[in-house]
């Protein structure tokens, strides 16, 4: 089996923060250290004329084309600049649950939702649509130094708050950030802990009717999303170092090092099922059929019965107390 991350391991690391450098980067995306150029050293002073590859005339930089342009033949030369591509997944986690098992998992889940759901929910629900979906997201590993400040009730005097500060190391491994448009953050959070990242392969396997989501944002926006996720992790980590039982105004600054981001496609089934004419949505994990969640109808009759029964019981107790107190 080929190592899906072999190419990534071959990427150069930033000389200052150790984060991997993408091929298109002019500067490290984490600490902004410029990536060294591979140009050959100039040995002596010379005056050069830069010529058009097409017609041999002297080239000049053209402000309208924002590139060197030949005034004679109009050809435009390419200049190396920081590119901002739309990312694609580097690794796909395979489906380990087939569609039949996904349907069965849905039935099992519907039957396990408790007494307040319709008694015939599992038997009467029919699957209207089942879409295998590879949704996309990033995982990141980072080692960071987190500086924090906050107010807490520890050491408070006249005011209810006292200021505190600290600096702590943070290590995060395989934190998942969703890039999915189809799944909500809550749904992704429920799915995340059931994936086996070690099963990743570089190409999606054949899966009939499977949809593959794309990363809809350019890489620069993706990096801002990751930065926000790192900051959120840092704040969460810092919370445990704030003394006292209450806190407010927690602020964190992060110095990330060796920030490594990976782009994954995660397998899940998005199902639409019909029960008594209404459609409901459910998600079945693509690798673990025990992870199922979604919307399901309530049994209004059962809820009314419980409410009325409780009201009747309360009324009876009230009547008994009243009768005994006379």
């Amino acid at each position, binding site marked *: 089996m080929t190592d899906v991350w072999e190419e990534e391991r071959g990427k150069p690391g930033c000389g*200052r*923060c150790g984060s991997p450098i993408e091929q298109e980067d*002019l*500067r490290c995306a*984490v*600490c*902004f*250290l*410029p990536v060294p*150029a591979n140009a050959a*050293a*100039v*040995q*002596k*002073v*010379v*005056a*050069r*004329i*830069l010529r058009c590859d097409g017609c041999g005339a*002297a*080239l*000049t*930089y053209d*402000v*309208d084309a*924002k*590139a*060197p342009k030949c005034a004679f033949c109009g050809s435009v*030369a390419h*200049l*190396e*600049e*920081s590119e*901002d591509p739309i990312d694609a997944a580097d690794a796909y986690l395979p489906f380990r649950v087939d569609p039949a098992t996904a349907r069965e998992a849905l039935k099992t889940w519907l039957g396990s939702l408790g007494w307040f759901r319709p008694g015939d929910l599992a038997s009467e629900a029919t699957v209207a649509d089942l879409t295998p979906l590879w949704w996309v997201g990033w995982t990141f590993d980072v080692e960071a*130094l987190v*500086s924090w*400040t*906050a*107010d807490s009730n520890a050491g*408070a*005097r*006249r*005011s*209810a*708050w*006292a*200021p*505190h*500060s*600290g*600096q702590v190391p943070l290590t995060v491994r395989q934190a998942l950030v969703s890039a999915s448009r189809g799944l909500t953050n809550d749904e992704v959070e429920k799915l995340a802990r059931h994936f086996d990242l070690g099963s990743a392969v570089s190409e999606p396997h054949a899966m009939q009717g499977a949809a593959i989501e794309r990363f809809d944002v350019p890489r*620069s926006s993706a990096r801002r999303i990751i930065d926000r996720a790192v900051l959120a992790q840092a704040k969460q980590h810092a919370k445990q170092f704030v003394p006292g039982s209450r806190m*407010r*105004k927690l*602020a964190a*600054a*992060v*110095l990330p090092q060796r920030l490594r981001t990976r782009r994954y496609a995660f397998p899940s089934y998005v199902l639409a099922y019909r029960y008594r004419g209404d459609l409901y949505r459910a998600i079945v994990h693509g690798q673990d059929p025990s992870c199922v969640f979604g919307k399901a109808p309530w049994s209004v009759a059962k809820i009314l019965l419980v409410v009325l029964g409780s009201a009747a019981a309360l009324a009876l107790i009230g009547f008994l107390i009243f009768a005994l107190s006379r």
Partner: protein
Amino acid sequence: MQLECQSCGARVEIEADRRTGKCLYCGSPQVVDRPSTADRPNPELAIGFALPPEKALEVARRWVKGAFFAPQSFRKAAVEEIRGLYVPTYLYSAIAHSQYSAQIGENYTVTETYTTTDSKGRTVTRTRTKTKTEWRSLQGLHSIYVSDHVVTASRGIPNDELEAIEPFDFRDLRRFDPILLSGWGAEEPSYAPAQCVELARGEAAAQVGRMLGGFMPGDSHRSLQHSTRFDGEDLRLAMMPVWVLPVRYDPEKPPVRLLVNGQTGKITGKPPKSWLKITVAILLALAVVAGVVLLALEASR
């Protein structure tokens, strides 16, 4: 320095502080390639011109007309000369480790009893809630990356003038290629990196100070001080696009130099002052103040 034109073989004279020139005989644009030294590194990064000259002229003309306190001769001066120049700058980045101390204001409320006179003239005792501030000391450590600080490497364009036309949009930053300079004016760096590093550190320390202001807890803060150590410092020579426009308004006086950011169109310059206009404005302001005072006195009689 005298170099040979690669097009016609003639001798080309290029000033030592310039990186580009033009052959007098065949008109070919020349770009100088030279070995890099510690004091005079070669450019590694650049931002290309994005603002066309017509737009830069339009911005400059509007700015000249809007200089209200300048002499009329300046406001009516023709803005026609324009030259695109790549200015050598150093792009600074580092890790900033800071130690800070501040007084943090934590608000609390107290209920005060006070006496006052009610509408019937009787003395009554009442209570009110007042917010007070308790000041607490806070010390701490703060570590971040600082980047994108641009300091001039040109004796011709002082740092305060460069700052006035910043920021540059670093999303358009490119790897330096001599072809970017072809047909344009370009200076060699007048300063070595070691001469500019203090200036860059000063800018980075100011950025850290601003960030620390937003980092403080509490309801308010005062006496914020910090001392910052910079690790992993990096200075790279980057060529930045600037339109230079001399405005000639009086044959007796030197032209006023305007600088326009060749990427964003931000403009700076020091317009001459018309002391007559300034005096008239001060006298008018004094007259308005005197009028208001007189009216107030009249009303209070």
